[in-house]
């Protein structure tokens, strides 16, 4: 666990909306999370819950004509990143915070060699002399487990496999020794054995470089393997947060519980899987009150009317469900 006063990234009340002609999609609707030093925090949720948008918003990568930051603060080392202009943000991107994206095919530029792409953050942020850049690039490639790095520097992305490309992405994110890496579903497009290798790699690098990791995924299995703390998102809000143990052994929010119960495994053979009826609400047409109430087996009248607040269970374990938390109606929204 982390010391509460050593927080690298703190997101408070983040709201990101997307406006179109006749609707407002509230993709992220008041989200709080934080990442401590040397900690691995997982942001878990299904597609459409707003986790990727939250991550993009941290680095100011949300395209701002359709999107807008409707509120909140993103504190990185004391500075509110949402207030910074593009130039100041450029300094943070790649340098203070590194990012690894999901699709290794499209995140690397197909017309530049690997060497040129790894060198780019080094050149921009660290202004190293060329000889040292090459040295650093080779070191980075071997750190991420790519063999024959000298040859790889001259290769183009299409000559590498998916796993290798993802390793290169990780190397690029690490290049300038950032304090925090944000990884958005980096292993979703990879085979399961390659995924295991990449997860091991990330783990190892985190130990050796002392970085914090914000890992975004929909795969609860991956979360169970690497997370220190977990935030569960649904329809743009955080519905539960806690240490990995607490979430997997004793989750409180009906959504988290249902999600865990719907995971197939061979132990459940012969039994029906408990699926969640219905579908995730469209970000522009969310139900009133608790966003999960139409699908929730424990919903009561108040769930339809009032937006619930977070209820604490143990330390660092909280869930946005006053029913589970035994709250009275007057305390519902706290």
């Amino acid at each position, binding site marked *: 666990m982390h010391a509460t006063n050593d927080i690298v990234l703190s997101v408070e009340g983040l709201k990101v909306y997307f406006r179109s002609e006749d609707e407002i999609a509230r993709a992220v609707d008041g989200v709080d999370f934080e990442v401590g030093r040397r900690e691995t925090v997982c942001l878990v949720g299904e597609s459409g819950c707003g986790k990727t948008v939250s991550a993009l918003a941290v680095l100011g990568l949300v395209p701002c004509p359709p999107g807008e930051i409707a509120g909140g603060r993103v504190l990185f080392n004391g500075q509110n990143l949402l207030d910074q202009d593009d130039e100041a943000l450029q300094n943070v991107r790649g340098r203070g915070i590194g990012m690894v994206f999901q699709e290794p095919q499209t995140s690397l530029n197909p017309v530049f060699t690997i060497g040129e792409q790894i060198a780019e953050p080094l050149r921009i942020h660290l202004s190293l002399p060329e000889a040292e850049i090459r040295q650093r690039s080779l070191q980075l490639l071997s750190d991420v487990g790519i063999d024959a790095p000298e040859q790889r520097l001259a290769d183009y992305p299409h000559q590498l496999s998916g796993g290798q490309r993802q390793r290169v992405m990780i190397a690029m994110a690490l290049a300038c020794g950032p304090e925090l890496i944000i990884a958005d579903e980096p292993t979703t497009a990879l085979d399961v054995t390659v995924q295991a290798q990449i997860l091991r790699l990330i783990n190892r690098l985190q130990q050796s470089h002392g970085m914090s990791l914000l890992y975004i995924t*929909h795969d*609860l299995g991956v979360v169970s*393997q690497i997370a220190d703390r977990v935030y569960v998102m649904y329809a743009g809000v955080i519905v539960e947060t806690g240490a990995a143990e607490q979430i997997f052994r004793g989750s409180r929010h009906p959504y988290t519980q249902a999600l865990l119960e719907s995971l197939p495994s061979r132990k459940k053979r012969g039994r029906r899987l408990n699926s969640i009826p219905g579908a995730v609400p469209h970000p522009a047409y969310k139900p009133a009150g608790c966003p999960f109430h139409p699908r929730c087996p424990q919903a009561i009248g108040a769930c339809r009317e009032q937006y619930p607040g977070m209820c604490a269970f143990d330390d660092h374990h909280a869930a946005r469900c006053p029913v589970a938390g035994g709250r009275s109606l007057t305390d519902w929204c706290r």
Partner: protein
Amino acid sequence: MEPESTQTTDILRIEGLKKHFPIRRGLFQRTVGWVRAVENVSLALAGGKTLGLVGESGCGKTTVARMILNLLPADDGRILYNGVDICGLSDKDMQPFRKEIQIVFQDPYGSLNPRMTVGQTLGEGLRMAGIRGRRPAQERLEHLLELVGMAPAAADRYPHEFSGGQRQRIGIARALSVEPSLVICDEPVSALDVSIQAQIINLLKDLQDRLGLSYLFISHDLNVVGYLCHHVAVMYKGQIMEYAPAEEMFENPLHPYTHVLLAAVPDPETGKKVATEAVGGEPAEVVAAFPEGCRFQSKCPERDDRCRLFGGDLTKAGAGHYVRCWRK
């Protein structure tokens, strides 16, 4: 050796299936080599049961599916559907079998024609099933939609108006429109969210119970396979590495690749941490250099030099349990 049939009537038996793709280079497209996508694959699926075909991307499982459907011609081997060899049949001869063997695809977004309504898409299947006349077709259409849990009003909508899970249901309805006995499910839930996966898996199971369908369930997700399948075959680079009843496969995996796969699968219930043993580097070119050797050598923790020369045939290692490794 092919797996013995577990029942007197296997609805599907594959023996020695082979598919090699030529690698062409140069101005005149000379064939310089072959990609051995599917090599000597043998499988058996009993009626009313589910056979899981597990493997990672590029192992050839989708190629096998396409050959069963005759969408891709096989180079060699036999595909016996209820005892009849349908491998290499002409389009005309394959027609009656098309009603018997159907497929559900992985990608809910690409598997439905964006310019046809749901009703029209399902209507194509009904046409092929010989349903004529507006009223019978309408009734059958509504029945199909209801079978997969969709409202009848869905028939007038276009695919883009539905979510991924709903589109997958429509895809299943399309496969069922000709009343098949064997349905090939090519990663049907891989592209879906967790909570929707469970809905679709439940649906597939219900349909199997209600309609007596047999499934060839292709997936890379061992958790789903472990839940749904009666038998499992593990495929790697075009070859079946292990074949066993599901329980047996998970309790007593024999092939080193199966071990690797199982170790790599995260299990939220046990919270097993990432395995510490090294699996090996990225694919090497060993397979091309030693075509007779085992295809898993480049990554196998138990390999030695003999593996270069001999990968082994599928040999029996227990009741209904076959493995391709000369060590076992």
